[in-house]
């Protein structure tokens, strides 16, 4: 190797010190910024160090590798870039059809359980060298030049309208509308929610997608998320994607908050790929992303169902009828009752009973009259039901209802609803409920 000279041996000692004495995670980017060398040199240094140490077989070292290449997934070819653990490297490489690049990503003593620390390591290093973080980088884009202040001012007005549709659409492309209402079990949802909220800040997560996460989550920086959105648009129609790429790019440059250079550059690289390669490539790329979206969509559906089920449970509890054993009623019937539990507590027992297995039905035959206090009083008579098997004495309930109705005009509504309900007694409860309105 060409690197074997005295200068580089000093660097090897440096790396050794960082890894063994300070217990640091040494990523190639951190090394390149710390030592002031080009990233490719840093990668080679790490490889050399690892090799050296492995031959000596002294301390136990762990390494992660960056692999990127083309991969065929169910007939769709996509370009994947991942950070994988050493143990998974060969397996991952074998899955790829074409390997574009493999290099050491980091070296550390500890076995990393997740990828978070890798990001954290680079974060501070890049933040300290924010303006010059691409000095040693190998990613170049000739059209990526900083805008002059004139251009920047001209760009001030357009970006907000471009921003808003993206913000509203981005959560949906990521497969989750709001992460607030639901307990965020969908990890994609968490990221979508945060990406929408922290649009101006750089909530930049891991730049590369990683298969080492068992939950198949994807850490996507803001730039990539907007590029993803653009790919989605391309999938559906080849129209304005390229136009949108440019304002997104420029808007990112305008972004005030500190952002990592690499996601920006990655996005620009992707932008380049878009312009140079045919649209086919983008379609396939977005297809693999739609799969992810679809899976998170199905998670979203599960969440909806769970939410519905949760609402159902309090409804039987609000029932005043003690004899009715609140079973878990079928979803459709009870969903409709949930919006107005307070309005008609007494009518619920009727509804809930019809959906129970026993099919006991209490027909409330109500007599409405105005008493001396100008209150509308409803007295309910109790009648047996045609399809009821039991007719247990629930006469306590009518008396309770009476007491309740002697209070306010809202009872009028109740009585009306009960009368309408009587008409629909012989049918399933759903129709009865609908007819009320």
């Amino acid at each position: 190797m060409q690197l074997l000279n005295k200068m580089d041996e000093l660097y090897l000692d440096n790396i050794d010190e960082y890894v063994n004495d300070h217990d640091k995670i040494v990523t190639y980017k951190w090394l390149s910024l710390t030592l002031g060398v080009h990233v490719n040199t840093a990668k080679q240094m790490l490889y050399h160090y690892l090799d050296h140490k492995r031959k000596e077989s002294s301390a136990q070292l762990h390494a992660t590798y960056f692999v990127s290449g083309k991969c065929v997934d169910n007939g769709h070819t996509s370009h994947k870039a991942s950070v994988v653990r050493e143990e998974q490297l060969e397996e991952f490489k074998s899955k790829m059809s074409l390997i574009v690049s493999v290099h050491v990503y980091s070296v550390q003593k500890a076995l990393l359980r997740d990828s978070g620390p890798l990001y954290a390591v680079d974060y501070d290093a890049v933040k300290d060298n924010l303006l010059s973080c691409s000095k040693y980088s190998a990613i170049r884009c000739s059209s990526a030049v900083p805008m002059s202040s004139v251009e920047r001012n001209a760009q001030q007005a357009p970006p907000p309208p471009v921003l808003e549709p993206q913000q509203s659409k981005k959560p949906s492309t990521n497969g989750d509308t709001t992460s607030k209402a639901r307990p965020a079990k969908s990890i994609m949802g968490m990221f979508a929610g945060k990406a929408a909220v922290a649009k101006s800040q750089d909530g930049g997560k891991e730049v590369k997608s990683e298969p080492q996460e068992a939950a198949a989550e994807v850490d996507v920086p803001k730039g990539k998320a907007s590029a993803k959105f653009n790919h989605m648009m391309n999938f559906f129609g080849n129209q304005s994607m390229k136009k949108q790429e440019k304002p997104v790019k420029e808007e990112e440059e305008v972004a005030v908050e500190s952002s990592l250079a690499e996601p920006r550059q990655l996005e620009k690289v992707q932008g380049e790929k878009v312009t140079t390669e045919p649209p086919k490539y983008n379609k396939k790329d977005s297809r693999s992303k739609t799969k992810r979206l679809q899976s998170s969509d199905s998670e979203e559906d599960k969440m909806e169902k769970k939410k519905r089920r949760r609402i159902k449970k309090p409804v039987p509890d609000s029932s005043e009828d003690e004899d009715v054993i609140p079973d878990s009623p079928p979803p459709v019937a009870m969903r409709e009752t949930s919006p107005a539990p307070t309005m008609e507590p007494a009518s619920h027992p009727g509804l809930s009973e019809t959906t129970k297995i026993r099919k006991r039905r209490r027909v409330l035959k109500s007599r409405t009259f105005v008493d001396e206090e100008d209150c509308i009083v409803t007295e309910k008579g109790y009648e047996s039901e045609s399809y009821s098997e039991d007719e247990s004495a629930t006469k306590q309930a009518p008396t309770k209802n009476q007491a309740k109705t002697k209070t306010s005009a809202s009872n009028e509504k109740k009585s009306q609803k009960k009368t309408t309900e009587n008409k629909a007694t012989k049918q399933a409860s759903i129709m009865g409920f609908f007819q009320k309105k």
Partner: protein
Amino acid sequence: MTTLTRQDLNFGQVVADILCEFLEVAIHLILYVREVYPSGIFQKRKKYNVPVQMSCHPELNQYIQDTLHCIKPLIEKNDAEKVVVVIMDKEHHPVERFVFEISQPPLLSISSDTLLSHVEQLLRAFILKISVCDAVLNNNPPECSFTVLVHTRNSAMRNMEKVQVIKDFPWIVADEQEVHMQEPRLIPLKTLTSDIVKMQLYVEERAQKM
């Protein structure tokens, strides 16, 4: 951002808030890294602009929050000398103790904007260090549990007993067994020195874990 002075805001409260937030993240991370609970219950969240692992289990989260809620008044008054996260094995013998030594300088200086982002950076370094601490620690036996201890003054303890900050969440004096470990090995992890707080994290590990 407003500059904080002792007169404007309760500076102690601000510091206590920052520290309690940090301790919450740190406890979750310790539980994740030391595999006290299965990693399936953890989820990536963002704190100090870096990804951290937090648990989704509601009861665990509630327990940790209640614990820190009770500790917060102690930190405000600078009564909490140490906050210790003890990991115990099946027989409730401690195997590891993560000790956060906290001290606040008596004269808190007026802070500026840069101070808080500097503190954020320091706390980030702490988080990173906890993430890689299993390089220096041996593996724990299976089926461990954890508890949180606070080293504080007698007067503060009396106050805590008198005023139950959270109902049905009593604090009791820790057993000798939980406080002291046999043959501990001391491993320093990180130190933080800033204008508002000085914190040190070290781990006491039992030599024979299994």
